[in-house]
Every structure is written in structure tokens, then in C-alpha cells.
């Protein structure tokens, strides 16, 4: 390799000739999906495979006095009925805590509940049968003797003295709490106009269209477990299956094929999935579990159930003087393993107000146990809440002092030339572009034009609103996210590239694909770094027996971390190939380059030899190479961010909508998003991540809510009753970019997977409140349903 300046630029990934970086190439893996020829877990059938269905608690909290399985065992096709104590001999319990969330506590959780069920839907027995239908017949025939226990449903009273304690061993229902203070908050609030708002965020869930799915196969002769799993983090699950089933890690193979949506839902340890794996060991045959839709609503993690009281002090000139929040969240009866259920609250404390220069900040959060579905990390973890609170307060403060909300943001956003800098909460920012992004948004949406249109329509009794939300997004997490707290979750990721004898490149990577386009990004980076056409690259993901060790895909890390590993592996493979080519051509490797799959002279691009020929000679005619030379047509590189714990990105969104004050219905007219995720590897894929994320955020803002009664019973566990965004109600979404690459990697890419979801709810709620401002009405309740809007308007009684 040459370090000379004239050659150096060709080695930088962003300066490669014939680059695929920045091009909207189609994803390599979609042809099979378009023909219905993907391979999702439920598409796989193994010899001697049986199906499991679970007996689930009908009560939110109840003691199990006995389980009568006699009738079940007589049902045709039923193979086994297994209760918690029996299965515990095959699977040890787990506790979802992390040491860096000091004081976080939880109760050991078993694969199948043993003494009592702690939420409606918790599994208390498994029925294994030849078909799923027969297993369900078996479930219907199991008789459980229950004693109902007092229920902790309302998080507001979970810590009261008279409220029963769910896990007596823990002493109380407090899972975790954190307080934070910076600057002089009391002085700040004494000095300015103060606005106070209470925000509530409804529990919602991921509703992946492919439900959770697992097919676990145990091979007793070798003691090997192979798990086909619809998941995001196969190496994490390999460790967890090995640890709790008492196997060696290398005897567990997790295969994550096509995944029908994840969004953070499929990155957790689910008791019924652990039970399925344990049953395959116990029964010594493959066991499949596919959640049905009711089970999904009752057992997929929920998220976002928060109540936040917020205050903001603002000076007459628009300077934000102080921010204070008091957050409360109910996480269900267990902190989820291994990521814990404290992270969303922690993120809210860390992220609130962090886009602004204000240094006076006080926050507290309390995380409590309750008898509902466990909550854990779901797309954009904490961001939608922190952003809705911050930006709701900014709009309220702007109204209080009579300043345009855009002007207040301009006055307070961290200046684009202030980086690197540290937020009041201690977050380190390498480089953000709030002001450029806001300027781009204002231009894109024609802010002044929309305001004029809004004013004109108000005279006709039409209530339209503009809502803006600025935000930051945590991406590319280092080990400071989970590893530092003791979780065996890899922050680093690896990529191995191998040249085959025909000049193709085989790429195996630790990141995974659930539709985001990770495989396209890996192919683009690999093709660019090595110097081959993209159709010469084959990507292999998701198989722990095959791919380098890595974290998988979550927290917007695949492109930034997996992509950088591919960039470095590509450079290394190119050097290795050029060493072989140099010998064949009797040329200095540093004078050669690889372009479009052929070795060429670096300076003038003259064609010298194809990679197929290099491969042929290296693999089949090594006898023609010098005896002191060994070709190595494979290279592996790993990468983890080192300069910053997280690569923060920034963005700003706007919503333009109309509220029908007679019916409370909201019509979304248009949505804009400007984001800065650093180097854009594939513009179309980034835009589609943003759009999909925005719509998930809109779901939380307007529709989605897991409704419970006071007995902890879920009232809307079907897709008829739980509303998700559908095509007819969604707006077109315009996306634009500002590009501030991270210097933590050569590629410079940050993440983009969660920005849409982070900002959309705030933009939509701000727009609703802007529309209703002439009526002197505000509401800060997510989802803002027609019923709630009419209640806020006083048209109907409050809920």
C-alpha cells in the first residue's frame, strides 16, 4: 500500500472511483420478497417438528393453585403439557438489570410462570402438539385453579402505601428512579415567564405484521441447538440461549432469516420464546412458536406509557432560561432482559431540552412496576416523549411571550459553529446542524406562505395548524449504552469479505436486515471499497455460525457501525488482492487499483487483469506464485465508535393539518422532515426510513393506544380495535438532508432509523394545538383522538 498523497485519496472510502456511496441503488434482497419467496420463520418446516401454544393468564395478577392437564393429554395430536416448575429444570430465570442504571431492580423471571401470573397474557403452561390447531385445542382443555390477587394497574398510585407490592421480595413497586440537576434552576424560573404543561403518552406497541416467531431445534447427539428466530440481534440471543439453557455458546446457532418487521420489538428476551427453546431441548425435537395477533398484543413489549409534568421559563427576548421535568412511567411487572425497562425513562432525562443552549435543567423520573404487559425499548426509545415535552413547552412559551415559535427555536438552538460541545445533561455532541436544518425546513415548507394561508382559512372557520419539532437522535451507540452496565450486547460489529475464484465478493456481516436496507448498504460499501460492481457482491447476514461477531440491527447502528466495518474490510481485501495482482503483473501493488472488478493502473486506469483471473491463479495455480508468498483473498475488520459514546444526529420536522372542531377529526395535509445523518449512503433508503418512522410516530400521536381497564385487562387486543396508521389517513412526507459526517469513522455515516419517530408526535401535537389556539385550547395527550380533542374543546365530557 502506498501512503503517497497522489494515491492516498483513492484509498479514502468517500473518494473511490465508481462509488456506490450516495446512490439510490435497489436492495439486493428484495426480489425474493416481491415474489413471496422469502424465508420467514413460519415458512420453515423441519422433520419431527411440533408446535407449542401457551396457556395464558386471564388475570392481571393471580396465584396458580394447580394445573389440571388430564383432559389435554387425551386430545389427538397433543405431545406434552409442561408447566413452569418442570420447564425451570431446563431453563434458568433471568433478571433485567444493568449496573449503570444504579439501583434498578427486578424480580427473577421464568420462561413459564411458576407461582403466580403478573400480567394478563403471561404464560403459565405450554401445550405441545403436532399442529398449532391441536395445541390450541389442548390449551382450551387445561384447567388452571386461580386465586385472584390485588392488581396494580395505575402507575400514579403504584408507590402509595396502600397499594399492594407485586414482588414482596423487592420491598416496593419502585423499579428505578433518577434525578438530575444542572445550573441554577430556581433562579432561572424566578427570572422569566413560566409555562407549565402536563403531558401523557399512551402505551402502544410495535404491531410487527409478522408476529414474533421462533423455531428451535435441538440435536441431542451433539448437544447442539439451532434456533430460527425472527429477531434483530442473533449473537445476543445466542448468548442468552446458551446461558439460560446451560449450553456452550458455540453449541448454539441462531439463524435470523427474513424478518417481517422489528422496530425494537424483536430485540428482547421473551419468556415464551425461551420456553420454546427449552421445550426443544426437553422434547429433543424441533418446536415452533408463532405468536397469534392476540398474543402479540398481550406479550410483545409495550412502550411509551409516561406521564411528564414539564415547566419552562422564558425571557421576554425569547431566551429559554430553565427547563424542569417530572416523569413517571409504569413498566409492567418485570424489567425486560437484558436491555432493561429503565432506558426509556433514562433517555427522557438525557434528551429533554438537549437541542437548546439552556443550561438550567432539573429532571426526575420514577419507573414503577404494575400488572400490565412489560414495557421496553421500541423504535426511538424515549425520543418521541422528550421531543414532545420539549417542543410542546417551547410552543407554549412562545405563545406566552407572543413570539413566533420558529423565532424562539432560532434564538435557542445550539449554534452550528459551537461544536464539539456538551449538553447540560452531559451528552457529547460532535457536530450538529440545527440551524441549517431549520432554515432548510422553513424554506421547504414555505413557512410564511403557510402562515398566511392559515390566517386566511381561519376567517372561514377552518382550523389549520403548523407544528414544528426540533430534536436530536442517539445513533451508533458504543458500549456505553449497554455493555458498560454488564449486558452481553455487542457494540462492535465485524465484516468478513472474501474473493471467490470468479471475482465475486462474499460479504458476511454481524448486522442484520429486517427491511431497513442494511444489506443494500453493506453491498454498496463493499462494492465501493473493494472496487467491484454491486451485483458481484453477495451479502450474508444473521447466522451466528457464519457471520463475524456483532450486535445486529438496533439503535440506528447498522449503516454507521456495520458499514464502517465493511469499508475497512473492503480496503483490506483490496490490498490483499493487489498484492497477488502485483506479483502476477510484476508491478508495485501501490501503483494498482481495482475498478469495476478489474485491476487497473492507478494513474491512468489502464486495464491490467480481471479479478476472476486473480482468483483463478490464486486458488488453482498457486504453483505459479513465488514460494515465499501466500495469497490471502479474505479480510475481516471490526469497528466500534471510539471518539464519542454516541453519534448524535439532529433533525427538524413540521406538520400541517386541519382539525374539524365539530367532529374532532384531524386531517394530516403534509409533513416535512429535514435530518442530518452524516454521510448518506443510499438516499432513497434513508428517506424511506424517515418516512416509515414518521408514520410510526404519527401512529402514537393520533391512533395507537393499548387500552386497559382498572383490573389490568387489555381492552383492544386485535387489529380491529387497536388503530394503526393506514394508507388513507397518511400524508405525503417531504424529506431533505443536511450532511454533517462523523469523524469517528471514515465513512462518516450516522444512523437514520429512528429520527422520523422521534420528531413526528411532537410536530403533530404542536400543529393540533396551533390549530386550536384561537379557541384557547391546548391538549398534550397522546394519542390525540377525536374524542379527546372534543373533550378538550368542551364539546363532550372529559375522559
Amino acid at each position: 500500500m502506498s501512503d503517497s498523497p497522489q494515491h492516498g485519496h483513492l484509498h479514502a472510502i468517500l473518494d473511490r472511483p465508481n462509488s456506490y456511496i450516495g446512490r439510490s441503488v435497489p436492495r439486493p434482497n428484495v426480489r425474493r420478497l416481491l415474489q413471496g419467496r422469502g424465508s420467514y420463520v413460519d415458512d420453515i418446516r423441519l422433520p419431527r417438528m411440533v408446535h407449542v401454544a401457551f396457556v395464558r393468564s386471564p388475570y392481571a395478577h393471580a396465584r396458580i393453585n394447580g394445573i389440571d392437564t388430564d383432559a389435554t393429554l387425551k386430545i389427538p395430536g397433543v405431545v406434552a403439557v409442561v408447566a413452569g416448575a418442570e420447564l425451570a429444570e431446563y431453563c434458568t430465570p433471568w433478571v433485567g438489570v444493568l449496573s449503570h442504571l444504579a439501583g434498578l431492580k427486578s424480580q427473577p423471571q421464568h420462561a413459564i410462570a411458576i407461582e403466580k401470573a403478573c400480567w394478563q397474557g403471561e404464560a403459565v403452561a405450554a401445550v405441545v402438539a403436532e399442529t398449532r390447531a391441536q395445541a390450541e385445542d389442548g390449551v382450551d382443555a387445561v384447567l388452571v385453579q386461580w386465586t385472584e390477587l390485588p392488581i396494580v394497574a395505575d402507575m400514579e398510585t403504584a408507590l402509595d402505601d396502600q397499594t399492594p407490592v407485586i414482588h414482596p421480595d423487592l420491598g416496593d413497586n419502585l423499579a428505578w428512579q433518577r434525578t438530575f440537576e444542572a445550573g441554577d434552576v430556581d433562579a432561572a424560573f424566578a427570572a422569566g415567564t413560566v409555562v407549565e404543561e402536563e403531558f401523557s403518552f399512551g402505551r402502544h406497541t410495535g404491531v410487527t405484521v409478522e408476529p414474533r416467531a421462533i423455531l428451535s431445534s435441538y440435536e441431542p447427539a451433539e448437544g447442539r441447538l439451532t434456533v430460527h428466530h425472527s429477531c434483530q440481534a442473533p449473537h445476543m440471543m445466542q448468548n442468552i440461549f446458551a446461558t439460560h439453557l446451560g449450553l456452550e455458546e458455540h453449541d448454539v446457532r441462531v439463524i435470523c432469516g427474513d424478518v417481517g418487521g422489528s422496530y425494537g420489538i424483536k430485540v428482547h428476551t421473551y419468556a415464551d420464546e425461551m420456553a420454546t427453546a427449552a421445550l426443544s431441548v426437553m422434547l429433543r425435537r424441533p418446536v415452533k412458536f408463532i405468536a397469534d395477533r392476540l398474543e402479540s398484543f398481550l406479550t410483545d413489549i409495550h412502550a411509551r406509557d409516561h406521564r411528564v409534568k414539564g415547566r419552562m421559563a422564558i425571557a421576554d427576548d425569547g431566551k429559554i432560561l430553565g427547563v424542569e421535568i417530572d416523569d413517571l412511567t409504569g413498566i409492567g411487572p418485570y424489567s425486560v432482559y437484558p436491555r432493561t425497562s429503565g432506558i426509556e425513562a433514562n433517555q427522557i432525562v438525557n434528551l429533554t431540552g438537549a437541542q437548546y443552549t439552556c443550561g438550567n435543567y432539573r429532571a426526575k423520573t420514577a419507573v414503577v412496576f404494575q400488572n400490565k404487559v412489560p414495557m421496553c425499548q421500541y423504535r426511538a426509545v424515549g425520543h418521541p416523549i422528550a421531543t414532545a415535552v420539549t417542543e410542546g413547552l417551547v410552543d407554549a412559551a412562545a405563545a406566552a411571550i407572543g413570539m413566533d415559535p420558529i423565532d424562539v427555536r432560532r434564538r435557542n438552538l445550539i449554534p452550528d459553529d459551537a461544536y464539539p460541545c456538551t449538553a447540560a445533561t452531559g451528552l457529547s455532541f460532535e457536530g450538529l446542524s440545527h440551524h441549517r436544518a431549520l432554515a432548510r425546513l422553513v424554506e421547504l415548507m414555505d413557512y410564511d406562505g403557510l402562515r398566511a394561508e392559515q390566517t386566511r382559512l381561519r376567517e372561514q372557520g377552518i382550523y389549520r395548524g403548523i407544528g414544528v419539532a426540533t430534536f436530536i437522535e442517539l445513533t451508533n451507540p458504543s458500549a456505553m449504552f449497554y455493555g458498560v452496565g454488564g449486558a452481553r450486547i455487542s457494540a462492535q460489529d465485524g465484516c468478513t469479505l472474501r474473493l471467490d475464484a470468479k471475482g465475486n465478493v462474499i460479504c458476511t456481516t454481524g448486522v442484520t436486515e429486517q427491511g431497513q436496507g442494511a444489506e443494500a448498504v453493506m453491498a454498496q460499501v463493499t462494492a465501493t471499497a473493494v472496487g467491484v460492481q454491486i451485483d458481484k457482491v453477495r451479502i450474508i447476514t444473521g447466522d451466528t455460525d457464519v457471520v463475524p461477531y456483532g450486535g445486529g440491527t438496533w439503535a440506528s447502528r447498522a449503516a454507521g457501525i456495520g458499514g464502517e466495518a465493511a469499508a475497512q474490510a473492503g480496503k483490506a481485501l483490496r490490498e490483499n488482492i493487489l498484492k497477488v495482482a502485483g506479483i502476477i503483473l510484476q508491478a508495485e501493488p501501490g501503483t494498482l487499483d481495482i475498478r469495476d472488478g478489474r485491476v487497473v493502473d492507478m494513474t491512468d486506469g489502464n486495464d491490467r487483469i480481471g479479478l476472476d483471473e486473480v482468483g483463478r491463479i490464486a486458488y488453482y495455480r498457486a504453483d505459479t506464485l513465488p514460494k515465499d508468498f501466500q495469497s490471502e483473498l479474505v479480510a475481516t475488520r471490526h469497528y466500534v465508535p471510539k471518539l464519542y459514546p454516541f453519534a448524535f444526529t439532529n433533525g427538524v420536522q413540521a406538520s400541517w393539518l386541519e382539525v374539524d372542531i365539530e367532529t374532532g377529526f384531524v386531517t394530516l395535509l403534509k409533513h416535512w422532515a429535514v435530518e442530518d445523518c452524516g454521510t448518506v449512503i443510499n438516499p432513497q433508503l434513508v428517506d424511506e426510513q424517515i418516512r416509515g418512522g414518521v408514520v410510526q410516530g404519527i401512529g402514537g400521536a393520533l391512533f395507537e393506544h393499548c387500552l386497559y381497564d382498572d383490573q389490568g385487562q387489555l381492552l383492544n387486543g386485535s387489529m380491529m380495535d387497536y388503530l394503526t396508521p393506514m394508507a388513507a389517513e397518511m400524508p405525503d412526507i417531504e424529506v431533505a438532508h443536511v450532511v454533517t459526517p462523523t469523524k469517528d469513522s471514515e465513512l462518516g455515516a450516522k444512523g437514520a432509523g429512528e429520527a422520523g419517530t422521534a420528531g413526528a408526535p411532537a410536530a403533530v401535537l404542536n400543529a393540533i394545538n396551533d390549530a386550536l389556539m384561537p379557541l384557547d385550547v391546548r391538549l398534550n395527550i397522546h394519542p390525540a383522538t377525536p374524542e379527546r380533542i372534543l373533550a378538550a374543546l368542551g364539546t363532550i365530557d372529559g375522559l
Partner: protein
Amino acid sequence: MEPMIDIKTSVNGTTVSARVPARQTLVDFLRYHLELTGSHVGCEHGSCGACTIRLDGDIVRGCLVLAAQADGTEVETIEGLSDSGELADLQATFRTRNALQCGYCTPGMLLTAQALLADNPAPSRNEIREYLSGNYCRCTGYQAIVDAIESVATARRGVTS
């Protein structure tokens, strides 16, 4: 014993005779008996549209039709419509426009889009959105799907844009 019913049906042009459980849905029959796994099961109560298939020329929810009801009918699935080339332009445009992410809803989306374009060769964006309103996609936010269908409609009409 579980009641069983004998059926004879045409699936993607091939005659299939089978003995099916009376309670088995058509999509389960296709997936588990014929191993045509391209029709996906998302909700099993007719809400999500992932199991959309074609029965005697009309799109239906495979989870709301019993296999027994398919006796004497013609069933077409994503596999058959891919092999016949009927969906080729839609599939190509979905690919270049990235009108799919995880792909689980995609077979149902494609069959629904094809039915829309048969009913209405020149749909507006709002009409496309309305027609797709029974097909749930969690990944894309729908805009890319609407774009792709709009673009195929234009191309099929021979309109140069």
C-alpha cells in the same frame, strides 16, 4: 376425530386434491399443505391484508376463507402471479422505488394493487390510498407504495410523463 373434507381446487393452474380439516383456513392450507408460503398470516381476523390471495378472480383474505370453501374454485397466489409475469411491472417498480421494507405485507399489497388497476386504470393518489386502506404496512409509511402504483398505472396507460 377431527372432521375432514375432501376438496379439489385449482391452485396457480395446477389441480390439487386434498383432504383438509374442516376448520382449516385457505391461507393455512396454502402455506402448510401446499408449502406456498408467500401468502402471509398477520392478524387472522381480516384486518391486515397480508394473506390476500385471488379466488375465482377476486382478491380475498385467505384467513377469512376456509380451505373447504375453495372446493371447485380457482386460487391464485403471489407465487403463481410471479411466475406468470402478470405482476412483473409492479414488482420491478416496487423494487426500484423501494416500496417494501420487511416484505411481509408485500404479496398482499401487490395483489391489491393489481386489483385496483384492473378496476381503475387511472387512480388518483387518494384513490390509491383508499384502495390500500385494508392492507397494513408498518415499515414504509405507504408513500413509496402509492408512488410505485401511480407510476405503474401511468406506464400501463402508455402515458409518457
